């Protein structure tokens, strides 16, 4: 018997099986949250879900496709404005506007990608920011949506989601949870697919990937459009909860990109687990320290510096390097046949 016969190539590991089991239990618990959690808890969980989605999408862009965008707020804001325009002018039900926002995000991402993919590295990052600023300035001129002043979502539209307040809150909560699960599942499935293999190759070495025959431009284009579409969807849901939109709030680089980068860098870039762990840490810090004013922002800065110095691959990257544990079964490994 040769050595090859005794071993097989596997992706799943005991850790990933246990994680999947706990994950499913956790998900069932979260789906049932409207029955056991208070209104404030539900709102907090949905905010966490939305940040998990944003961070996972940014991680897909930066961590796998090497597209370091600091302009994702362009799509968050676009989704938000799309929701307001669709519901106020065309009477689209808010919950239906959320998937439609994804279509709008994708449609706009195509020409933008063609334009900014001509830039590389730092120039690409600045280019994406410029695009987001252009969006902000353009929406500041749309007087039907309040121009620079912004506008509020009429209470009647929000109340149109469902008759009772608790049902309304449950629907928006499930939307947020569903979106986060959809995004994480999409990233996972994508990375396990043929295209995911190409992405992993690009992440590790772009030049080597080209020499293997991977069409880098098309792979990146695909990832950019997908994440723009889903980011717009998340944006629509964010502003359905905020109830008010203005160009500065919609295209805020701090809220929708800087915090997201913080989350991904802390959690571990280039891993699926990283953005989830980063979001939890970010919310732990925010819930405990936000009342301290500027001290809170200082603490965020210190945490970021400390993690970058001590664990450059983020907290999950550090754990993974030490233990080899992987909660989402992605890496192929050779294991002895049982």
């Amino acid at each position, binding site marked *: 018997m040769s050595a090859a016969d005794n071993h097989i190539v596997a992706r799943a590991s005991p850790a990933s099986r246990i994680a999947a089991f706990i994950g499913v239990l956790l998900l069932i618990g979260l789906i049932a949250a409207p*029955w056991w959690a*208070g*209104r*404030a808890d539900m*709102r*907090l969980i949905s*905010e966490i879900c939305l940040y998990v989605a944003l961070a996972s999408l940014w991680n897909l862009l930066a961590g796998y496709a090497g597209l370091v965008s600091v302009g994702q707020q362009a799509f968050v804001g676009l989704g938000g404005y799309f929701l307001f325009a669709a519901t106020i002018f065309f009477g689209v039900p808010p919950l239906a506007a959320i998937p439609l926002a994804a279509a709008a995000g994708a449609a706009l991402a195509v020409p933008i990608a063609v334009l900014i993919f001509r830039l590389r590295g730092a120039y690409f990052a600045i280019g994406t920011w410029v695009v987001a600023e252009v969006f902000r*300035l353009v929406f*500041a*001129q749309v007087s039907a949506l*309040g*121009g*620079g*002043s*912004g*506008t*509020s*979502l*009429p*209470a009647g539209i*929000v*109340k149109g989601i469902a008759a009772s*307040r608790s049902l309304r809150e449950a629907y928006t909560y499930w939307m947020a949870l569903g979106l986060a699960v959809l995004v994480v599942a999409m990233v996972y499935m994508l990375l396990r697919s043929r295209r995911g293999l190409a992405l992993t190759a690009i992440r590790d070495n772009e030049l080597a990937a080209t020499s293997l025959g991977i069409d880098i431009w098309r792979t990146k284009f695909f990832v950019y459009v997908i994440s723009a579409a889903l980011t717009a969807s998340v944006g629509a849901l964010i502003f359905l*909860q*905020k*109830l*008010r939109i*203005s160009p*500065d*709030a919609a295209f*805020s680089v*701090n*809220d929708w990109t800087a915090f997201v980068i913080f989350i991904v860098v802390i959690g571990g870039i280039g891993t699926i687990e990283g953005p989830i762990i980063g979001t939890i840490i970010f919310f732990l810090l925010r819930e405990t320290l*936000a*009342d301290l*004013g*500027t001290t809170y922002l200082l603490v965020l800065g210190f945490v970021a510096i400390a993690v970058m110095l001590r664990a450059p691959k983020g907290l999950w990257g550090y754990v993974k390097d030490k233990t080899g544990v992987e909660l989402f079964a992605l890496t192929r490994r050779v294991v002895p046949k049982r």
Partner: protein
Amino acid sequence: MTKSAASNRPTRRAFLTGVSATLAAPAIMRHTRAYAQNPVVKVGHVSPRTGPLAGFAEADEHVLGAIETIFSGGLENNGKSYGVEIISKDSQSNPNRAAEVAADLILGEEVDIIVAASTPDTTNPVADQAEVNEVPCITTDCPWQPYFFGRAGDPAVGFDYTYHFFWGLEDVIAAFLDLWDHPDVSKAIGGIFPNDADGNAWGDPELGLPKPLAGAGFTLTDPGRYQPLNDDFTSQISAFKQAGCEIVTGNMIPPDFATFWAQCAQQGFSPKIVTIGKALLFPSVIESLGDRGDGLTTEIWWTPNHPFSSSLTGESSKALADSYVAATGRPWTQPIGFKHALFEVTADVIRRAADLDDPAAILDAIRTTDIQTIVGGVNWAAGPVKNVTKTPLVAGQWQKTGDGFDLVVTSNAPAPEIAIGGELKLL
């Protein structure tokens, strides 16, 4: 299996009854505070403690400290003493954060009343959250048009849960027209408005300054909205020079005004009167302009010389400002009076509400408010639209006195009860 054992098993019907009872329990067993030993009313408060709008909330700590001392004895409602807990949150000058903390206060802390102050970026997101989540809300310190029309308000319908007291653009216009009525100044005005909530409202051709200015015989040169944090005002300044403007007015944030005013000097444009809303409210801003801060004019909502006193403590405007100056060593600012008044109104509502557990009763108490506060009368029955009531407004000038600057009321036609403190000096 015996029959009795089978009947002990929960039937489908018993199960459903039990579950629906459990689900309905929160609605039936509504917690009634009136029977509690020490009932507490929770008031949520949102203001911009940090960020670019921090000047508006600079006095918060002092004013809230004093209010908490006053409330520590409890407020009487229907013959019972209620404790008042004020939970204050920082909006970080960010409308996104303002909406988040308002939702936290409403859903997490379950406040009975939510109050907020300072600029549309704070009042509007908080009021929107309150409206949808059905919690009574009182706001101040933002002209009523950006508050009401900025939230897509319809004067015929109004809002159900959100109420606001401050002045409006018509008051600013009246106060400014009175200020500009000077024999040595021509009637050519340059208007400079940013593309933000306040700028759009002030520059609006129908509801803003342009129409009444034309009616009063002024010619307004309006070169269009600029983006906030602009660094080049050359085109505006040359338009003003070309039109021979001797007065400049508008609504700016302090950094924009500093840039504009420095470039006016560089480009040799020297108007005789400069009256700007929002930017020139705070002594710290005027001091940062050095000698060029002397003689600038602004709207005045409150000064220590206003002839009003607190309904909570009976102290005069002067005493309130003096206690701030003595405690902090910093000059008084206009929001002090309004922040105090916001809690005067809140206390009045808490005292008068028929049932503090019922938001509808609290709203009734807000609607029937009629008190004299340290910033003037507050009475929603007398407002221009359903959810707004107005306090008096005058205009005045920053004048150099010794080392510092003093804000002097120079014109009071719209509110003659507020005494004039000095003459307008041309720049």
